[in-house]
């Protein structure tokens, strides 16, 4: 049954082929699938494709790991302690209210166009979804369970790992999902503005050179990479469900 998911992409491919070869669109507007494939092979021969894909993936993974780890820690501090919530909650909320792409010019100014500015931007993008979901979910952990655990002398970090963390695990995972999508979004934004490599650079570069075939190639690659990394989160999610899920073990 899972194979049915392939039907729609195949139909799109056929429609794309027909639209591009029957002259509905000009080749500049919409090159045929074979042209796009050829552009991919050409870039591969010149060893540029892997460079673009590699550097983009590296930026996303680094930024995602840093941003979501910070989101988890700071989200836990805000969600668990009333004092940190009162002290830092409004400030973080205000920073969050800034449309995140507004940081791009400042990053370029402060950190320059190097790798660091891109990884930092991706990390900012990944931070907030994790932070928000973790802080919110921790506030809503069943007080009855916490009290019961406390009545058995469980407190502090042991209370966190025994009751609170497992209870918010589903939220953590959905936060990570959102964070990953945000990470790719921010990557492209960062690479559009200032980069000499990466898929975002490939997009702008192709646009200015009129290479629509490469442009479409970059979009397809982003879709594939996004899907693969999301599938990795899916594997992690299933692991947490087996470990901490409330559903029967055989699901």
């Amino acid at each position, binding site marked *: 049954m899972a194979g049915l998911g392939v039907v729609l992409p195949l139909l799109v491919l056929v429609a794309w082929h027909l639209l591009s070869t029957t002259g509905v669109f000009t080749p500049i507007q919409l090159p045929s699938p074979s042209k796009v494939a050829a552009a991919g092979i050409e870039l591969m021969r010149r060893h540029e494709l892997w460079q673009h894909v590699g550097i983009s993936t590296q930026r996303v993974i680094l930024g995602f790991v840093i941003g979501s780890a910070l989101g988890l820690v700071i989200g836990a501090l805000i969600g668990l302690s009333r004092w940190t919530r009162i002290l830092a909650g409004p400030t973080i909320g205000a920073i969050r209210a800034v449309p995140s792409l507004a940081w791009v010019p400042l990053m370029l100014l402060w950190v320059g166009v190097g790798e660091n500015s891109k990884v930092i931007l991706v990390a900012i993008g990944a931070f907030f979804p994790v932070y928000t979901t973790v802080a919110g979910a921790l506030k809503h952990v069943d007080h009855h369970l916490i009290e019961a655990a406390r009545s*058995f*002398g469980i407190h502090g970090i042991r209370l966190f790992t025994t009751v609170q963390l497992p209870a918010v695990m589903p939220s953590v995972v959905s936060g990570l999902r959102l964070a990953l999508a945000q990470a790719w979004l921010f990557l492209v934004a960062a690479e559009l503005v200032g980069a000499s490599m990466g898929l975002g650079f490939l997009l702008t570069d192709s646009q200015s050179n009129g290479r629509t075939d490469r442009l479409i190639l970059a979009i397809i690659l982003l879709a594939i990479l996004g899907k693969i990394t999301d599938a990795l989160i899916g594997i992690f999610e299933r692991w947490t469900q087996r470990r901490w899920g409330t559903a*029967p073990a055989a699901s």
Partner: protein
Amino acid sequence: MSSARAPEDTRALEAEVASVRFHDVGKSFGTSSRGGTRTQVLRDVSFTVQPGEIVAVVGPSGCGKSTLLRATAGLDTATEGSVTIDGSPVRDIDPRCAVGFQEPRLLPWRSITDNVALGLPRKTPASRGRKRVAELIELVGLTPHANHRPGEVSGGMAQRAALARALARNPQVLLLDEPFGALDALTRLKMQDLLLDLHRQDPTTVLLVTHDVDEALYLSDHVIVLGRPAPGEPAGIVENIEVDLPRPRSREDSDLARMRGHLLGLLGVDTTAH
């Protein structure tokens, strides 16, 4: 308040059973300073639970029954008076107590076994802990479900697991806050018998808060009846009824029936209407 039994002869060997003493316990809510509104719900409650006794606390909703129990566990504090276990006051979460709540409050992602193990005292060696948990699960009749998660068993089974978790703590005082209140009538009767069974094998001191007058009379040595002298006034002890009948008791016992009428009368239920 409580009758002075002579527990020494039977309990001399089992030192791990404690007495609980409530001394002029009161509870108020709200701000105390600068004329803020302060509501007193409970006042001047004094009674003693002797080692190994089962004492039930009954009374109308909101009269502070649970406050007494929670103050004993260290989950809550009395605003006046003191609660002492074997003479030493309760300050924080007390390691001598274990609590059974109205809801099972099991961690839904852990198996029954792992939930019961949560009750074990902190420094229990792993192998001894495993053995004890298996014993307790056997004792409450959950061995076939030991590896199931709480969501996969019935409410009665979950409540039995919660009872086993409380017993895993090896408590000197077992505190039960309407433990069978959410169960269906038949399961409730079975749970009461299970509790008596466990108590016969290991006579821990039990303090039981309940809504159920029959339950209180069937299980306990004393029934503490809380009530308000007048509407709006803080509640206090209306009567301390001694149930001096050997266990196991018959639920149809005529003495129990008479006490039941009296108790319901104290709680404001007219039993002569039909």
